[in-house]
């Protein structure tokens, strides 16, 4: 398996980015979802620390992933339907955009609410905006709505890949997985 993508398959680096990030993002989504339910106490502090740090990790990783994508060709979408191809490409690009919007809105929300963002206890990130309750509400809303919008995108994405695999019976899912796709 080559490190780089080819015109009809993903390389090892793109596959690793896809699956490692998918796992981390879904885990952070679940953690985010339960943040409010954790009773006030040290475990809440820990959960918030991990959620925010992991979100920042995703932000860093998405930048590297886009750089890597820039050095690679993107395998062609396996469909003869032009509308589906455009839809699939748009959804993929929108994913990249979402992983700016989601972490940055979370970060801006924390800054506006007067809470510093720390990366796994290693260092403190600068505040993105000044403390301001109204802005905090706005960024909180952006964060929450964008994660649920992302959830909708993910459901479509998963159904699409299962549709390719089981109905179309093409190699879309196999070429994103680690074995031989042919």
């Amino acid at each position: 398996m080559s490190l780089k993508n080819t015109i009809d398959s993903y390389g090892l680096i793109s596959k690793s980015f896809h699956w490692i990030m998918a796992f981390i993002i879904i885990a952070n989504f679940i953690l985010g979802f339960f943040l409010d339910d954790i009773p006030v106490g040290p475990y809440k502090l820990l959960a918030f620390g991990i959620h925010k740090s992991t979100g920042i990790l995703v932000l860093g990783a998405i930048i590297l992933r886009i750089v890597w994508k820039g050095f690679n060709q993107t395998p062609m979408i396996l469909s003869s339907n032009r509308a589906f191809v455009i839809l699939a490409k748009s959804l993929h690009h929108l994913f990249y955009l979402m992983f700016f919007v989601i972490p940055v809105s979370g970060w801006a929300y924390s800054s506006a609410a007067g809470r510093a963002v720390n990366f796994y206890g290693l260092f403190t990130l600068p505040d993105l905006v000044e403390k301001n309750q109204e802005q905090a509400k706005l960024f909180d809303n952006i964060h929450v709505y964008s994660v649920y919008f992302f959830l909708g995108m993910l459901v479509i994405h998963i159904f699409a890949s299962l549709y390719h695999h089981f109905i179309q019976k093409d190699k879309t899912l196999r070429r994103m997985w680690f074995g031989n796709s042919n």
Partner: protein
Amino acid sequence: MVRQFKLIKYFLLFFFISTSSFALEKWTIDPKKSSIQFKIDVLLNEDVKGGFQKFSGTVEVDREKFIGNTKIETDADSIFTNYDSNYKDLIRGDSFFDLKHFPKIILVAKNFYINTKDQNTISHVSLTIKGHEKEFDIPLNYIFLKNEHVILNGSFIIHRNDFEIGSGPWSETFILKDEIKVLVNLELDKN
């Protein structure tokens, strides 16, 4: 820097010896120029950093005999931290400082001595928070300015569980650590 400190110390020593009867001198804290700050480490999150805004006190010392007494009273209600936006009430409530019952934090210094090993001045203090009293030593650094003004600083570590700062679920120390690093910077004027 070390040389300068040594010089200052020798100068002070000479000053002590050459001045015949010193008796008790009274110094008062200038709260505007002084600060009491603290820091607690948090696992995988931002450390708790904060301080107290209101405190007052006097230092009475006989510089010749190296005895005296100091009392610093801190208004526990004047506490501020970088976690205030979420935990302001909690910090003031009974699981942390229980301000209703314990509005003051009191530090009393009973005596001073010079550590013969490193020539540092050590103050033996007792600290009372939430009704719990602990005694320990604080190494002090001080610089006299024009003999009417002194800058004094000391840093020390206390353990929050010794004072019940964080009871119930907060008494665990894996996430919110037990150690509180305290940094006291005081500027005092001679009365």
